[in-house]
Structures are given as C-alpha cells and as structure tokens.
C-alpha cells in the first residue's frame, strides 16, 4: 500500500537517478511495516535493469546481514563478512572450497543458497534473528550477484562531486539551480510543481522559516502593497538582518548542543551556561561563517590568539550532563562526559552514530572501536572532575567574566538581570600534558586495554599528518576540502529547517543504516556551494528561500497525497506544525505581549503548579522549587525559558521539544490529545488571547467584523473568508450570550494571567472577543507553517 506499483525504470539513466526510484520502493516499504510482504510478486517484475550496490544492495545487507557479517570483526559468524568485496569473495570453510559470493556465479554463491533455502537449519537470516528478506530483496541480491556483485564505497564517504544543474526544456518555473534539480526529478516521476503560494501564505512561511515568528498585520499590508519585482527578496533580506533570525537559529542550535540551565542528574543543580547561549545568538547575528562558528566551539581555546570570545564558544563541549558526589563514580562519569562530547561531535558534524562503536566495532558502519577511542581522545584532555562536590561548585575548567568584560569584548552578554559581580562559565581548556586514552573493553570505564592517539575514522577521511593532534586539528579536519560529510550534514540540516525534512531524511544518520538522499546531486551541489562560497549561512538560506520550490502552494491533491504522501519530491510545499517555541512565541507576538529583550539569564514563565516540587528529593537548591517570573519576564521568547533537564517545561515537551539530555538534530512532529489540552488551557495562551482581543480593539476600534478580521489575520497571516467570518461572528455572539446565562463568566476568564486589558469595552464583550481569539489561536492553520 505504500508501494508505488506504477514505478517503471528508464533505460540507462544516470547512476544516482536510476537507482533512486527503486530505492524509494525499499524505503517506503520499510517504513510501512518492516516485514509485511506487500506486493512482492508485483515488485519482482520491476527489478532494476542495473542493480547498484549503494542504492539497492547495501541497505539490505546492512539492515539484515551486517549484525553478524559486517564491519564488526569480533562479531563475524562463520568467518563470512559481506562488508567488502575482498571479504565476501574470500574462500570459506575448512577446505576453503566455498565462497560467500562468487561474482557472476549464482549457483556457487553461498549466500544465495542460504537465503533461498527452505531448510530452516541453514536459512539466512536465521529464523531466531527475527529478520527476514522479502522475495523482492532476494531477487535483487540474486541479480546483483549475477551482474558481478560490484561493491562501492558508501555514498556519504565519497566527497561531494561538482554537479551541473540539469537543463530542462521549456522551463518557465525555475528561479534558481535548486529548482532545476527538483524539477528534473519531478519530471521523471511525472509530477508537476504546484502553483505559487499566495503572497500571504508565502510571507507567513518565510517569516516562520527565518525568524520563527509570524508577520504582523502591518508587515502583511506592506508586502501586499509592494508591487516591485524584488518585493519578496527585500523581505528575505530584511528578515535575515533581524536579531530574531539569530535567536531562531540559536533555538535550533540549543538542541544540537544539548543546552540546559541545570546539570541534569539526580538533584539537577542549576548551572550558568546562558552567556554561551548569548554568544551563539551573537555569532548568528553577525553571520559568522559556519567553519569559524564550529571551529570556535570545538577549539576556541586552541586557535592562534584566542580571545575571551573564542574561549566562551567552547562552552559547547561542556553542555553535557554532569552529576554530583554520592550519585556516581568519578572515573565512570568522567568517561561518560567525554563519550557525550564524542557522540555529539559525531551526530552534529558527521551525521554518524559514534556511540555504537564504544563497546565493539560498529555493526553497520566502517568504524572500529579503536577509531571511536581515537576520536574520544581529542576530548579527553581537559582537567575535569567526574563528580561535583556540591550545588555551588562550578565544574572546572571554567572562565570568569567580569562586569567590565561584559561591557567591552563580551558586550553581547546581557547582564541586565545579573546580580553577582562576575560570571563563571564552563569552557574547554587543554591540560598541559594530554591525558592518555585507552580503548575501553566493552566501553567500561575501568577496563582500559590498548593505548591510542588522536585520529579520525579512516573511512571518512584520514587525519592529515600536518594537523595538530588536538581539538584544533580536529576542527581543521572537519573543514578539509575533501571532507565528505561536514558540508553535506550542515546543509542538509539547514534544508530541513526550511523545507521540513532533509534531502537525507535521517539528518542524524548518514551511515549505512541512514536514509539515502532523495536528491543526491542537489545535495552535492548545495554542499559545494556552501563550502566554496565561504560557509555563509545567511546566503545559503536565502538561496533556498528564493527558490520556486520553496514558494509553491502547500495544498495537496488527492493524487499527490497518494503518490507522494511524504512530499519527498517537493511537488508542493510541506505543511509543518510549528515547533514548541514557535507556538508560544507566536501567541506572545500577535498579542503584543512579547518582550523582545535579547539574551541574559533564563526566565520562568507560567508552568503548572507543583511539578518541580513533586519530583524533587529536597536537594537541588534553586531548582527544588519553581519560582515563576513576573512582569515582562513572563513574555520572553521560549529560547529563554529556563531548562531544568530532569523536569523540562511540560508545555514545550508536549510539542516535541528535545529533552536536551543528548545532542538532537531532528525533532519529532506529533499530533496528540495533550497538545490540544495545552492550547486550550495553558494560561499563557489564554492571557495572550485576551491581550490580542484588547489589541484588536485598540487597533481597529469597535467594529466587530474589523476586530475579528484583525485577530484572525494576526494569527493566520490572512484575512478570513466571509464564511469563516460568519462562523466567528456566530461564535462570538454565542459566547456573549453565554455570559448572560452564566455558562461563560467574564470576571473569571478575564483574570487568567497577569495582563490587564486597557480597551474601554464592557467585560462581556471583551471576554467573548478573547474567547474568539483563543479559538483562533487553536486553529490548525495557526499552529502550522503552511
């Protein structure tokens, strides 16, 4: 059922293109249900003419075979590894007379005998593994062997190759190169681009994509009335130059960096890492090139002439959880911290899951346990403790920031609400003599085996001899011209922000088990553009937003819903539910409550009573009891909401915010009843609805239709249709009538939250209007980037 049966392959297509179509079959099928064998017989007739290792075969081998016949040398069964041609073709058995694979020889390839047998005793994968191959997959393997069983390097480990944008006849749609790649693929599938989004839709989408906030009614009007040909580009440029853009980028980076305001274990003491967060905002605001942005965070203390700014940036590697005395063994936990840095490095910059190689060679990717600990060793040489002594301790190493510095070199740090004279922020600082790193047997902290020195995984890119064997060298390695992953991973994540999902859907896994790119040439094109044009984040973002692809309507026809439900081919814009931060920030923005102050210590907005207190053990100091902020601090952007790791803000968690326990590059997007409860009953939303109602009266006066229009347009960025207006008017009148029957009590409803309305209208009218605004804030359209 998730199986595009109409698929038909063309003769002699380019490698990437040809195989991708069939690949879709595999991945979609996998998604629907891993082992349901739907349509296998039909699919059999559609085996690709040319079977490709990377796109057809490796996904199967990796998923069903590699656990016992893969890269992990210590887990090889029966002496057979299918990881490389050399291993797979090698003679097997006591007499060395059998072969896993004999290229071109279907009869004598042992693996085919084993997968086609009906004898459960020798069947592969073995029944007890609970893994099975479908008939289609078996047929693919057979054909691959028949065609010579050619192996290829994993696509993501081959450096991005220059790609010319396809030439397309009669193309009056494309705005830039992105579109040509996208259109080419659409044409192959027989799809067509959707019509352009309305100006209003486009403006809303762009505002959210670049700043995480909707446009105001005035901004909408201005754009609607701007008929110049570059009206849209002007908007994009101006948005990229707002600090809101920087804050929105920073919000995303907080997930990657697992930022939190507490240490994260046990009593979960408070920490002060927000000055580092302020630096992140500052860096995005100044459009610091991506290579420098990352180099500062990895090695700002080791670059030539480090400054307090570059050292502060290294706080990135100290955002992991830290535990306290009585809650663990110091040696064990110090190792956990280094592991966390190693894994964060892998996920954030390489799109590789490093933790799999902690205990054994990686089961799926060419990453040995030794290489894991070689990478680990880069992060192993700071003078840190495994356990904190008490709540007041600042785990070393740390830097101090004086009031004076915060006014000069570190003037981007918001000290408005800082009471103490100096701040202390955890950073990286290399020990005079690097700590020795050993491979840990099964990853256990007190079982060191062989000594290793810093190096990077061979299969990705060997570590150049001329680079220093420290974090600076590691950062330089990431930005080597022929690095296969850095640019792809980064640009893929930026794509994910703008389009809803990456060109590689598994933005956290570029390895063998990850998804294959939907548009491999485009991914390479974007990666090289990003790399060659100075790692300019704003530029590449602008390039995406100016594409025709981005500017399509998000309406879905039943045919396309059927043909491409996940919108892999981008023949429309994807409707995306707003993030936890956006939902709250939008409510604050449209109601006029938003406090636009940038940076500073985190704040504590409304939160249900007692949820910190219910779980605390009484320790924790400042984090035992939730002391809600007051006044303007209730209305800061969600980026500044205090993050207690063991009890994160429930309204945000309900909307799939990352817990910040570990590096996260991709959030879920779910749709649950608890979300409805938050939107209906969170005082923050109710207060915002009242403020919005109040603001509408102040903005457009007492005309009820005008008020409705104002509110509706504030929330959805478009005026309501007459039909919608009618529904809203009926609702408003009904709500008003209910104030007379006692079913709706203005005196109560209007006192939720601190905000006091100023409009001079009777309470019943204001309450009915506020309830209408509240309903509008709950619309699917309101919480969607459409």
């Amino acid at each position, binding site marked *: 059922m998730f199986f595009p049966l109409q698929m038909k392959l063309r003769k002699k297509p380019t490698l990437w293109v040809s195989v991708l179509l069939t690949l879709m079959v595999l991945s979609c099928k996998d998604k629907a249900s891993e082992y*349901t064998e739907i349509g296998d017989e039909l699919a059999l007739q559609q085996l690709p003419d040319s079977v490709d290792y990377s796109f057809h075969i490796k996904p199967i081998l990796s998923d069903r075979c590699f656990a016992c016949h893969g890269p992990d040398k210590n887990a090889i069964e029966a002496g057979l590894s299918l990881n490389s041609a050399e291993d797979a073709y090698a003679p097997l058995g006591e007499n060395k007379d059998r072969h896993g694979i004999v290229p071109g020889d279907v009869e004598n390839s042992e693996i085919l005998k084993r997968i086609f047998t009906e004898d459960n005793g020798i069947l592969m994968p073995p029944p007890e593994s609970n893994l099975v191959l479908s008939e289609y997959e078996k047929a693919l393997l057979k054909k691959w062997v028949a065609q010579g069983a050619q192996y290829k390097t994993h696509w993501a480990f081959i450096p991005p190759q220059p790609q010319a944008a396809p030439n397309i006849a009669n193309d009056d749609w494309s705005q830039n190169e992105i579109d040509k790649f996208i259109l080419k693929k659409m044409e192959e599938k027989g799809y067509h681009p959707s019509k352009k989004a309305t100006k209003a839709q486009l403006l809303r989408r762009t505002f959210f994509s670049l700043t995480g906030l909707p446009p105001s009614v005035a901004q909408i009007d201005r754009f609607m009335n701007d008929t110049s040909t570059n009206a849209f580009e002007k908007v994009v440029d101006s948005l990229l130059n707002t600090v809101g853009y920087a804050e929105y980028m920073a919000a995303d980076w907080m997930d990657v960096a697992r930022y939190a305001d507490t240490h994260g274990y046990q009593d979960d003491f408070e920490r002060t890492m927000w000055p580092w967060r302020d630096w992140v905002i500052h860096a995005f605001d100044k459009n610091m090139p991506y290579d420098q942005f990352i180099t500062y965070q990895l090695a700002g203390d080791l670059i030539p002439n480090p400054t307090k700014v570059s050292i502060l940036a290294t706080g990135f590697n100290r955002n992991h959880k830290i535990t306290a005395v009585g809650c663990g063994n110091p040696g064990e936990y110090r190792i956990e911290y280094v592991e966390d840095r190693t894994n964060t490095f892998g996920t954030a910059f390489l799109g590789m899951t490093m933790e799999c190689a902690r205990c054994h060679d990686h089961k799926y990717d060419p990453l040995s346990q030794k290489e894991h600990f070689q990478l680990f060793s880069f992060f192993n040489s700071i003078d840190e403790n495994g356990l904190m002594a008490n709540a007041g301790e600042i785990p070393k190493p740390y830097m101090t920031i004086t009031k004076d510095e915060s006014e000069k070199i570190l003037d981007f740090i918001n000290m408005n609400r800082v009471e103490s004279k100096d701040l202390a922020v955890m950073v990286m600082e290399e020990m005079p003599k690097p700590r020795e790193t050993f491979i840990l047997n099964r990853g256990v902290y007190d079982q060191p085996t062989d000594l290793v020195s810093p190096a990077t995984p061979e299969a990705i890119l060997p570590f150049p001899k001329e680079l220093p064997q420290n974090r600076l060298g590691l950062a330089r390695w990431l930005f080597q011209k022929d690095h296969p992953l850095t640019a792809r991973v980064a640009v893929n994540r930026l794509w994910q922000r703008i389009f809803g999902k990456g060109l590689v859907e598994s933005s956290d896994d570029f390895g063998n*088990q990850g998804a294959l790119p939907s548009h491999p040439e485009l991914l390479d094109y974007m990666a090289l553009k990003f790399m060659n044009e100075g790692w300019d984040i704003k530029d590449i973002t602008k390039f995406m937003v100016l594409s025709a692809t981005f500017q399509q309507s998000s309406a879905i026809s039943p045919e396309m819903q059927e043909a491409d439900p996940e919108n892999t081919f981008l023949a429309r814009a994807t409707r995306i539910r707003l993030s936890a931060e956006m939902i709250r920030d939008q409510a604050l923005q449209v109601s006029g409550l938003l406090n636009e102050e940038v940076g500073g210590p985190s704040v504590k907005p409304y939160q249900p009573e007692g949820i910190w207190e219910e779980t605390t053990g009484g320790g924790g100091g400042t984090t035992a009891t939730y002391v809600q902020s007051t006044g303007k601090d209730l209305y800061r952007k969600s980026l500044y909401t205090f993050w207690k790791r063991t009890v994160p803000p429930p309204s945000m968690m309900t909307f799939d915010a990352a817990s910040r326990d570990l590096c996260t590059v991709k959030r879920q997007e779910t749709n*649950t009843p608890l979300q*409805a409860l938050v939107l209906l009953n969170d005082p923050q939303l109710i207060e915002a609805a009242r403020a919005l109602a109040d603001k509408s009266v102040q903005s457009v006066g007492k005309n009820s239709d005008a008020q409705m229009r104002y509110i509706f347009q504030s929330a959805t960025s478009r005026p309501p249709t007459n039909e919608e207006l009618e529904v809203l008017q009926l609702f408003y009148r009904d709500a008003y009538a209910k104030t007379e029957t006692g079913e709706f009590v203005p005196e*109560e409803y209007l006192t939720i939250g601190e905000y006091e309305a100023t409009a001079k209208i009777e309470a019943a009218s204001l309450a009915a209007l506020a309830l209408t605004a509240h309903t509008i804030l709950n619309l699917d359209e309101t919480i969607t980037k459409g």
Partner: protein
Amino acid sequence: MGEKKILLDNAVNLNRRAFLGKSALGVGGLALGSLLGCNFYRKEGELVVKENNAMGIKGILNAPHHSAKVKRVIYLFQSGGPSQLELFDYKPLLNERRGEDLPESIRNGQRLTGMTSGQDKFPLVGSNFGWKQYGKNGTWISDLLPYMGKMVDDICIIKSMYTEAINHDPAVTFFQTGSQQPGRPSIGSWLSYGLGSENENLPAFTVLLSRGSGRPNGQPLYTRLWGNGFLHSLHQGVQFRAAKDPVLYLNDPKGVSKETKRTILDNLAALNEKQYKEFGDEEIQSRIAQYEMAYRMQTSVPEVMDTEKEPDYIYKMYGSDAKIPGTYAANCLLARRLAEQDVRFIQLYHMGWDQHDNLPAAIEKQAKDVDQASAALVADLKQRGMLEDTLVIWGGEFGRTNYSQGLLTDTNYGRDHHPRCFTMWLAGGGVKPGIVYGETDDFGYNIVDKPVHVHDFQATLLHLLGIDHERLTYKYQGRRFRLTDDEGHLEKDI
C-alpha cells in the same frame, strides 16, 4: 515515528470518511472514540476495520507473539532501594555476627558507592525487626509487613534480583528503560507502542507519584522515567496528579463551562474542516480527532480519579491513608480503578526508601506507608476476578548492604546501596503464586541460586503480556532498539 504514524494516520483517514458523512458541523457530539486509529488491523497488507471492538491507540503488533497471560500491569515502584534484609530476605546469621567485619571473600571486589568507599570497616548487621512464617510454605516475612505476610500465598517472591547500577538515577533508569543512560523509551511506552490501548478515553500509560514518610526528602524522580524516548509521543506516560489539575492542563480555564468548551470545539472543528477542504492535509483531520480525545479525557480522568463513592469496606482494606489524595494508599486504589478501565500500564512511584542512616526508624514508617495498601490491591483485584489478567509488581531499583553504613549502635544503623541481590515480588496472571524464587547466601550479599537480571525481569514481563522481547523493536538512528537491549532471558519458572 515512521510506522506508528503511518498506521495512525491511515486509521484516522479511513474513519474520517465514515464520520464526515454524518456530521454537518464537524464533530458535534459524535462519539469519536474510534477516530484515534483504533479499530483497524492489517490483513494481507491492508488496513481492515474491526467491527464492534472500540479500542484506543492501535499497537504496532498485529497480534501478540504468543498468547498473553495478562492484559495490564500495575508496577508499584519502590524508589530509593528498599532493604531486602529488613523486609523479605531473612538472614539470622547477620544478627549472630552483628558487628563483625564483612569477610573480603564475600565482598569479592564489589564496587562501592561514594558514600561508603571511605569506610574502613563494614560491620555486619541483621534486621532489628522480628520475622514470622506465613502461608502454606512457611515463607519468612518481616514483622514490618504483616499485611503482605498474610497474602504471601498470592505472590511470587524473587529474592535473587540483581542489577549493574549502584546509584539511583542510573539504576531507576535501567529498570524503567533497559539502559542506565537516559534517552530510551520506558516500559510503559514500549507496551503502548507494541500493544496499544484498550481504552479510548484514557492514555495507555499512566503514572502516579507519592512521597514516603521514611525519608520525606529522599531521592528525586525524573519525568524522563515515563518518557517515550524515540517512540511517538502518543506513547509517553501521562502523570495523574493529586493536584487540582489531575493531568497537566486538563482543567478548563476558570469561567469556561462544559457547554462553552463544547462550542469552542465545534467551531474549531468547523473552521479546521474548511482548512482541510482547501489543503487536503490529513494532519488536520488527525488534529480534530485529538481535540475530541482531549475533550473525553476531561470527563474520563476526573471520573476515574473520583474515589468518593468507593464503599467503606474498600477504604478499610486499603487503610485510612487511601482517603488522602496523593498518598501511596490512595494511588493503589486509583491503580485498581485505572485497571478497571483497561489502562495498559499503571506505574506508581513511591519515594523514600533510601535509608543510608537511621534505617530502623525510617523503614518502619516507610513500610507502614505501603504494606496494607499493596496487599489490599492484590486482594481487591482478586476479589474482582481481575488478578487473573493483571500483573502486579512490587520492587525498587536495587537492594541494600548487609553491613552498616556509618556507625553501628545497639539500636541504630544504616545501609548503603547493594546491586548484587535484592527482592521483588510479582502477583497475578501467569505468575506462580506462593513461591519464593532464587536464593541468596547466608550473608545476604551474593546470589547462590537462580539469579534474575533486570533485563531478565523485563523480558519476563513482556512475555507475560504476549510479547517476545527480542521481537518488539524500533529502528532509530540506524539501530533496532529494544527494551532489553542486547540481553535478557525469560524466567520460565516464575
């Protein structure tokens, strides 16, 4: 979220057609229970509507791997590490040799926590409390647990539990998620994912917290213990609280009546429906359905939390604390009520078992918190015929040392964390009642018979629910994860 989401979305889709035909203004007062994706199963690759069988969230498993012994679980988690030596594991030798140093041959290199690693002596100490034999097998139970003693023929005591973690946070996380490091889904989430929900009005996984009197400021808990990890957030545990909002954000805003709320939802649905017509995005339909589920929870949750009408004899069974919301006893009673509503996994946490010092005084209070109500819950389920298809679990994250932490006096002592052996008990369907499983040495320090690892326990739990622990997996970041990680063996003799 792949599989689950697709299944759900399709279920919602299918039903939408049926429901749209009936309703002019969106949803109105229709009973939309089945909208959540419930009545569907997969037959030859197609989703098929299951007639007359309204259920909540559909699980990923089309059918159990084998026949299930139980339908639901009540897990009475005793947080902090209850001392097995004061409660279930009778070791007279420790009283005989009180004050003598723990022989190195027994300790055998066991790692210590930061709290006793500085001690130069490890004086053995037996329980300060008396013991009696109960039941047909004459099982020894501490005088601290007279009610549990009387029901010993209904429970299966496992004395040979062991774990690898020695500190609370990793140890509890290990029990609840199969991994010491945070981030994995918890048991209840796995069950919701695998088996789905049998109630259309309540979450499949609910959580109840209570604070012990043994150590009121004991170990903290973490919301991630009932988190969904990488599974769809529909599977997260929902905490039911004794506070005025029994589920976070459940209550309507003040001033808004039920009728007004209904009007809001009807109009929301009407407007959302227009959006759907324009954009054709199935998520919009799903959202309408979720608002209806939320609406139903607003009725069903307070109903199940309202224990006022429970008869007096029930309160006599559970004890007077059961009338005080938020106590362990009240939560046990609530657990039974949730079980009656077919909630799949009901997780209680009772804090305060961490008796490093002043153990005798503290554990007496702590045991009193839980003894009567735990026993009453089993008896109550039994009298309702529900014990047959319910699994009740009682236990903590590790045990406690056989030597005193801190100064040993005539009347006072403490005990540190001990991972090598501790006791839990199970009751209900598929579990052999009245037996004691596994044995520890005379020092109560090491297991001598039938060791049961945390993963074994988890595998067994899943087995009783009809799940093969090796086959309930979820692929995330390229790897198939399961509750029991790479380990876990079935304990068939329990």
